């Protein structure tokens, strides 16, 4: 984690302000209640002073002891009530802001083109950290503002009250707080480095264990068990050292903060000894100072915490921006209605009418791949209702061509027209009911099969059943425990590779699109199932709509029905009209 460039410094603050604005009423309400909570100790200190002065009889025109106690009870009770309500308001704010940030990030990542689409990120693992940790970091940062304001408010009141008792004394005890703040920052920075080393040492231990158990066959057959454990012992010993350093430093930091109270109280004692003898500094004053000082000792820690959170938020905001449209981090805090307070059933989306099968043309079309390769200079005509088969060796660029056309593969060149009209935003255009796609490795989600196939769109049971049949998936569904209500996906019933592809085909067919794009349906299917699938798919085409179809396939079943064959070789595309003899 390197320091953010200077011009980035404002980004975390900007997002923070946006977050405050997103639910301004609740934030201000929460902040006001928290302010009351922070102010209470100021009163408590004064009442303690009054109580002790009443005991010793030093209270010139002050409160009697019973009055002071009664007020103390009232303030404490009020403080508890304030705390409780602040917690309840804050719980709502907290959960709502988390959901808001996540929703905006998710929308940007899942949008099919358009202005709201962010650049798709590579690697789900890394982006999950953004949704989980970075969202948390930003909220904690904004949450810290409330606490810091409260603490500073209390500190100001406390210092004024103490200064009115004894100005010189107040200045002397305030100085250690500054020193503690500085030393705490230095120690905290050191602790961060030590902690990093400790985490690395831990990663080495878990890494070795993971390697050993992944390679357990090699270890066992080589009789290397003892040696492996010896290696573990070395790594364990190294981690013992880093852990010790971590723990001790953490305790030193803690001790430093705790001893501040004792040292400052001791300083007060040293300085007031003379005045107390003379009766100029009362026991009540001492109670006031000890009470305030024990609260003030927490101030450097709060300030440090907010600074740390600011640094974390800077990193978090930068990482969030990468997922958002135009790298604009403020998109993360765009207000948006959220249904969080009671169980929510999202409405089903109305079904748009399927357009007529399109004629699609590609001219000088190409896809630039970040790592080189890609496809270039493609001139291709897909007549309305035609069936085009794409073929070529592994890695030639077949999938890239399909994904590029659908706006899924990043930067493209050339033009694409739909019934003669140029398409400017491919990703936004090639979606149902215009187009549907079956990827090579489809994903299903942890939801019912029905939800997975319809994706929130209104569809009649007849259409769904027809799609299942056409995709040769009906027999599989019949065998599932709850039919189309069976929960599938990572946390449901596991489907085999072939089932997954047929489910994805059914999903695309259920969208009833005018243009169908299928990427190598057959790679996980046996010949018989595949034959069945093609037959039904082609039978379905004989109906009212004859969608324009673009498929990647090597199998004879598909080639038999092809109107044209497209060969892709090292990113170069050649088109063969119908009836070209099979090269094999």
């Amino acid at each position, binding site marked *: 984690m390197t320091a953010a460039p200077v011009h980035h410094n404002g980004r975390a603050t900007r997002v923070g302000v946006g977050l405050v604005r997103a639910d301004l009423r609740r934030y201000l309400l929460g902040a006001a209640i928290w302010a009351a909570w922070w102010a209470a100790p100021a009163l408590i200190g004064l009442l303690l002073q009054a109580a002790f002065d009443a005991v010793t009889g030093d209270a010139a025109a002050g409160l009697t002891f019973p009055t002071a106690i009664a007020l103390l009870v009232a303030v404490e009770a009020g403080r508890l009530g304030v705390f409780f309500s602040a917690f309840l308001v804050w719980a709502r704010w907290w*959960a709502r802001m988390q959901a808001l940030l996540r929703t905006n990030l998710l929308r940007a990542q899942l949008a*099919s083109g358009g202005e709201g689409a962010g650049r798709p990120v590579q690697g789900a693992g890394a982006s999950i950290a953004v949704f989980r940790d970075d969202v948390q970091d930003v909220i904690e940062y904004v949450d810290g503002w409330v606490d810091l304001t409260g603490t500073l408010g209390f500190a100001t009141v406390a210092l004024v009250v103490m200064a009115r008792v004894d100005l010189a004394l107040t200045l002397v005890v305030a100085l250690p707080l500054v020193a503690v703040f500085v030393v705490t920052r230095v120690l905290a920075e050191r602790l961060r480095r030590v902690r990093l080393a400790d985490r690395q040492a831990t990663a080495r231990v878990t890494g070795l264990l993971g*390697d050993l158990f992944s390679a357990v066959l090699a270890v066992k057959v080589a009789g290397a068990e003892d040696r492996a454990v010896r*290696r573990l012992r070395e790594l364990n010993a190294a981690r013992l050292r880093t852990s010790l350093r971590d723990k001790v430093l953490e305790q030193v930091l803690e001790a430093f903060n705790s001893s501040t109270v004792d040292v400052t109280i001791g300083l007060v004692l040293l300085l007031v000894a003379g005045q107390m003898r003379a009766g100029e500094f009362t026991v009540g004053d001492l109670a006031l100072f000890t009470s305030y000082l024990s609260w003030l000792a927490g101030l450097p820690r709060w300030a440090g915490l907010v600074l740390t959170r600011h640094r974390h938020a800077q990193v978090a905001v930068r990482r969030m921006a990468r997922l958002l449209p135009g790298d604009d981090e403020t998109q993360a805090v765009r207000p948006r209605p959220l249904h969080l307070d009671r169980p*929510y059933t*999202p409405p089903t989306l109305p079904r748009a009418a399927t357009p007529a099968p399109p004629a699609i043309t590609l001219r000088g079309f190409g896809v630039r791949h970040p790592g080189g390769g890609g496809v270039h200079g493609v001139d291709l005509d897909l007549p309305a209702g035609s069936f085009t088969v794409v073929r070529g060796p592994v890695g030639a660029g077949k999938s890239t061509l399909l994904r590029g056309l659908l706006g899924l593969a990043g930067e493209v060149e050339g033009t694409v027209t739909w019934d003669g009209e140029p398409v400017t935003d491919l990703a936004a255009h090639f979606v149902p009911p215009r187009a549907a796609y079956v990827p090579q490795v489809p994903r299903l*989600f942890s939801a019912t099969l029905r939800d997975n196939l319809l994706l929130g769109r209104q569809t009649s049971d007849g259409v769904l059943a027809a799609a299942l049949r056409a995709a040769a998936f009906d027999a599989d569904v019949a065998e599932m425990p709850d039919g189309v209500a069976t929960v599938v996906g990572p946390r449901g019933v596991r489907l085999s590779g072939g089932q997954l592809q047929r489910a994805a085909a059914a999903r*695309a067919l259920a969208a009833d699109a005018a243009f169908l794009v299928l990427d190598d349906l057959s790679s996980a299917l046996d010949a018989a199932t595949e034959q069945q699938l093609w037959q039904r798919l082609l039978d379905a085409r004989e109906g009212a709509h004859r969608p324009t179809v673009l498929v990647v396939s*090597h199998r004879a079943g598909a080639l038999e029905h092809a109107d044209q064959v497209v060969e892709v070789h090292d990113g170069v595309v050649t088109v063969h009209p119908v009836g070209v003899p099979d090269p094999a």
Partner: protein
Amino acid sequence: MASRNTHWQLFAEMLRPRRRALVGLGLIVTAASLLPLAGPQLLRAFIDRAVAGAALTTLLGIAGAYVALGVAAQVVTVGSAYVATRMAWTATNDLRERAAAHALSLDLAFHGATPPGTLVERIDGDATSITKMFTDVVIKVVMGLLTLVGAVVLVALEDWRVGAAMGVFVAAAIAVVVALRNRAIPATTEERAAYAGVVGLVAEQIDGAEDLRALGAGEFAVSRHEVASGAHARALRRAWRAAADIWTATTGAFALGSILMLVAGWALYRRDAITVGTVFLLFQYVQVLRRPIETIAEQLEEVQRAGAGATRIRRLLDKVPAIAFAPRARLPRGPLPVRFDNVRFAYPDDGRIVVDGVNLDISAGSVVGLVGHTGSGKTTLARLALRLVDPTGGAVVVGGVDLRDVGAADLRRHVAIVTQDVQLFDASVRDNVTLFGASPVDDATLSDVLDQLGLGGWLAGLPDGLDTELGGGVGLSAGQAQLLGVARAFLRDPGLVVLDEASSRTDPVTAELVEAALDRLLTGRTAIVIAHRLRSVDRADRVVVLDHGRVVEDGSPAALRNDPTSRYRRLLALEMQGVSS
């Protein structure tokens, strides 16, 4: 209840060898918890003497002592943290090593059913929760309890009635906080589960983002996230509410205690039973109570977590390895003949028969290819020859000795396996090839072997030679990793080699190197080749075709290829088709 016993037993086992360190820890912890209690005593002395107009030097002396005491208390606290952490880590590191050694001794059926990640979590994750318990419980709970008891005793010395009342009060406060905490646990667990649900959903959606974008289903996915977020928001509110209950109870009890103590002090002072300094002292002792009461309640959860971790580790340690070694005979040197004597093998858990009466005689120095569909039993047969599993019937005889009579070290020295997927370790080249020194060779021999196998040029290009760390910056191609795997076996000069040839994806040049290395390795040794691709049995003298755990064909590759009715020929034809497609 049984599990409770097992985890306390495990804790006792871990601490027994550290009795002396434990005594030292006890002493330093006692000092650290009692020192802060002297503070209020000094404050009282200061106040009473100041009010009585004692000499300034006396007052300054007391104030100085107060500062010194505050610093000393913190120094001792840091010291006790050091001692406790050191003890906790040494004790649990022993446990980690013991558990890792035990897990490595368990059979492949166990490892097949237990993902490496789970084992890492068991051995390191659970041990770390025990470490945390030892350090935090010792530092926080024991110190907290000592401080509480000390404060109550010191107050009782001033006035036994006030002391007794405070004792009752402390006990009640702890009971209430613990009860509230236990009540809060379901809400917290629910909140964590709901949050895991949200994160899991987002992970799935991001993973399948392309499908969602292509199908215009972004808004649908976002609304599902909203549903999950709503469930989490409500769970979070319940969990925070429970936390607010705890906090309010603790703070309320503490405030009430402070006020009651003030009233008691005032009453006693009015009857001239105590000085004003003592009123201050009594009040200060209530302030000392808060942190311990809170932390004790917090740490009880940690203890529960560690208990669960200890129970899981105990269960792992109690698993008995299926293979026990009892050396009764030694394997001869040189190429080893292998005989499968009516060998049967069925999985212990479901009784599924994988090897069904195999009789096979493999002469010393010959190369036999095992061929068959997935599930035909060829991998199990190879594992039987390595004694990674024991037959459920019949015997595997290597070098004239029943494998069950051979010692572990002897067996591992003479029987080796080469797989095409070679797992590399985050360790030096030397450790990777010798497997952390399991094959004891000097660097010259090691370099020589790597050179012979075609890795000489690669080794020469490494920045630190044999000391170069692999896994991090230094990459290895799949082919080079395979060569390292061959080197691992080669170093031990085995009499029997099992070759597990998975589909290979290396470039032609490296593939040739690997072939040459394998030829070198197999010269003068017996070899069993598990052929996933029929082309890889080219080097075999003999092919054995397996089907459903039985030998269905046995002969030279040429003879089987030329037999128009042979299964081998049919398999070969199928494979050719697959390749051309």
